[in-house]
């Protein structure tokens, strides 16, 4: 590695040989990156490729193990976020660093270094948010705002510091398509002012649409530095994944007559002040059908999953029917015994106990529904270890779960592999009804396509499947019909072939926090 004391002065930010070790793991291995002024620069890579590690080092919240950072040609050591801000680097986080209990103005005040009164900040924030087309109410509590609105706070908060480089971490994953369009307009305005943007994403269409250059990472290593507009989605994907991703085949099996899962006028009050109440939800899923439920995070997806799975029971028994049987007051095990399977959202702590082995995790889910296979008789119900291990092995083979050791702890698997196991655990039972929530969130492309294919195959064998997902690409890939959940209400399911991104966006509520009158205008 050659050592230079000065970098290229035409670059706003230059990174040479940046490396970060976590123990033995090289999260970043000799990364080079050049960002010029007035440039939207994409940082592409799959989950776990090392994108977040890299930007954390640029923003001073992680310390590099080796390598150099140059800011406007001068070598710098960025040791804290405060120092990064002082240089002129602003960051909009993926998992927002907002304080729910505080107001919008208080949240903004916290990231301002100079002493400005909260009232003064409210005014400046109002002016700025208007200028960039980011509507905000400074006195609202963050807890009451939609995810899209929260992101606007982050952006306004960053812009108030007048940075020369703005880092955006996966900004569109939480937006409706309309909100994303609005964001791109804001980014182009930022670029036209001579500022630069480092845009982190794994969505290729976006990168091709708005970015001037792209740096691609895979397994912590640099695998590409290109002009995304000169590339094809396939060539970009190859740089990201390393091989061609098997595309999902959806032939669209026969949809039967029998309704296997039904929700009738289902309502449930919000359990906590920050939860969402479900309002008059109607849903019917027939044999061979996959209903995709789209929606922006926090609009009642987990609440809907809870009432369908029986984690939350409702007063009216016929609010939910499985296979024609009213189950509203039944618990999870009773619903499983009727042939249903459920895969909740969070892998760790909800779908699986991280500290337990895979086989233990399998018994935890199926100890009632497959009692005869896994437990021997008698009052003690002793676990039949052999049968459990065998079934666990079957799932691992079927879903191609990569792991180390015979029967490792759930926490030792990567996100994608654990998710494959959790989905496979339900599929192994051949459920007639399957409800999954965010099946491929934070999962690498290979695992995601494997899981999606498995869901399609299950429906083709005559089961009814509900996929709740924020990922619209996923919804379009697997669903036969699409419904949208917004503020606890579910739209009627429409055939996937008739749905457009635009229509889904409007059903998602268009642009949150704007005057409803303007949304009407959009609709016509």
């Amino acid at each position, binding site marked *: 590695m050659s050592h230079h004391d000065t970098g290229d002065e035409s670059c706003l930010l230059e990174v040479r040989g940046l490396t970060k070790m976590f123990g033995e793991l090289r999260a970043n291995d000799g990364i080079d990156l050049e960002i010029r002024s007035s440039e939207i620069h994409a940082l592409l890579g799959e989950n776990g490729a090392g994108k977040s590690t890299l930007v954390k080092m640029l923003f001073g919240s*992680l310390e590099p193990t080796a390598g150099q950072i140059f800011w406007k040609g001068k070598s710098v050591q960025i040791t804290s976020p405060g120092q990064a801000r002082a240089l002129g680097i602003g960051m909009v986080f993926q998992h927002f660093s907002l304080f729910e*209990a505080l107001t919008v103005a208080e949240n903004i005040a916290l990231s301002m270094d100079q002493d400005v009164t909260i009232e003064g900040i409210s005014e400046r924030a109002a002016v700025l948010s208007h200028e960039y087309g980011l509507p905000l109410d400074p006195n609202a509590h963050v807890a009451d705002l939609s995810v899209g609105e929260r992101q606007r706070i982050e952006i306004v908060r960053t812009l108030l510091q007048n940075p020369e480089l703005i880092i955006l971490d996966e900004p569109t994953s939480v937006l409706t398509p309309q909100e994303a369009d609005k964001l791109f307009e804001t980014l182009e305005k930022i670029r036209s002012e001579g500022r630069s943007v480092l845009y982190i994403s794994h969505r290729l269409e976006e990168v091709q649409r708005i970015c001037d250059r792209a740096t691609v990472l895979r397994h912590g290593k640099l695998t590409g530095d290109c002009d995304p507009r000169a590339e094809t989605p396939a060539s970009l994907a190859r740089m990201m994944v390393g091989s061609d991703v098997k595309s999902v085949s959806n032939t669209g099996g026969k949809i039967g007559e029998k309704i296997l899962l039904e929700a009738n006028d289902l309502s449930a009050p919000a359990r906590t002040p920050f939860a969402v109440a479900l309002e008059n939800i109607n849903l019917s899923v027939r044999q061979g059908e996959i209903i995709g439920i789209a929606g922006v995070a926090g609009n009642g997806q987990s609440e809907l999953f809870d009432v369908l799975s029986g984690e939350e029971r409702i007063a009216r028994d016929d609010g939910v029917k499985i296979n024609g049987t009213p189950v509203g007051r039944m618990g999870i095990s009773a619903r499983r015994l009727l042939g249903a399977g459920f895969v909740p959202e969070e892998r760790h702590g909800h779908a699986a106990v991280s500290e337990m082995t895979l086989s233990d995790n399998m018994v935890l889910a199926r100890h009632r529904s497959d009692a005869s296979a896994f437990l021997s008789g008698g009052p003690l119900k002793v676990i039949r270890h052999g049968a459990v291990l065998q079934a666990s092995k079957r799932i691992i083979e079927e879903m191609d779960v990569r792991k180390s050791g015979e029967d490792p702890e759930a926490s030792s698997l990567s996100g994608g592999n654990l998710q494959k196991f959790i989905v496979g655990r339900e599929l192994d039972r051949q459920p007639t009804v399957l409800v999954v929530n965010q099946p491929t969130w934070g999962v690498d492309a290979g695992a995601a396509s494997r899981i999606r294919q498995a869901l399609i195959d299950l429906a083709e064998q005559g089961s009814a499947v509900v996929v709740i997902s924020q990922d619209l690409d996923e919804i379009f890939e697997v669903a036969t019909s699409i419904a949208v959940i917004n503020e606890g209400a579910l739209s009627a399911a429409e055939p996937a072939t008739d749905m457009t991104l635009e229509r889904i966006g409007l059903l998602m509520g268009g642009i949150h926090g704007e005057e409803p009158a303007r949304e009407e205008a959009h609709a016509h």
Partner: protein
Amino acid sequence: MELTEAILFTITTAATPLLLAAIGELVVERSGVLNLGVEGMIVMGAVVAFVATELSGSVYLGAFSGVLAGCALALLFAFMTLTLVTNQVATGLALTILGLGVSGMIGENFVGQPGIKMDTITIPVLSSIPLIGKLLFDQDLIFYISIFSVFGVSWFLFRTRAGLKLRAIGDSHGSAHALGITVIRTRYLAVLFGGACAGLAGAQLSLVYTPQWVENMSAGRGWIALALVVFASWRPLRVLAGAYLFGAVTIGQLHAQALGFGIPSQFLSALPYLATIVVLVIISRNKRLTLMNTPASLGQSFVPDR
């Protein structure tokens, strides 16, 4: 008239240590730290204040020593939980046990000795207002500090930038760190403030309430202070209301026991706890407001990922 005034006076005396300890713990918990060692810090404050007063002859030097004793214990707690990242609940419980034990040892030769009572400071003019004049403006220094601390803490938390940062750390220490706010240092300061308040509460017990040293003289006040903070949903003015309600019912039931209403004395003794819990539960029934004020990272250890 004389009697009413005397009764009201005893109520303020009973409420002051609770108020001080609770206000200190409120700041600690707002920063996201749960210090269950309040009882231990109070009793250490009490014994050190008493012994220092006996040795120096000055109650103010004694009270100041009590504050330092509370701080010393708090510093130990902060070092354990913030620097060594031990479990806050277990460390706090250990602190209480340590405080009770060490205080008994320090005060062994002082048990039963007559102490010096802190004089009242009479504020001219204001103290001649009928009924409340003497009650509010002819009191000892610790009383004035306790009332001032409520409004001071309230102003600090909700009107100053440092207070905003402290609340932000309590709400989400990870986000606060990402913004460059110094989580650990702020928490150290908050824990030390809590220790100082608890130490002063202890000094009040051994210099004002009953000017002498008795082993375990904190008598569970630390635990009541902890409960007050929670039931007051981390709002300073509600802590004031709660502490005085508790003081009032405590004194009231003592008089009721003396008069002998035919109510079992055990029930009367339990009354302050019941009344305080009922009233504070009622005023905090607005769930939204309570949730907004609950420090979301309370009791969680923080390790910056560098």
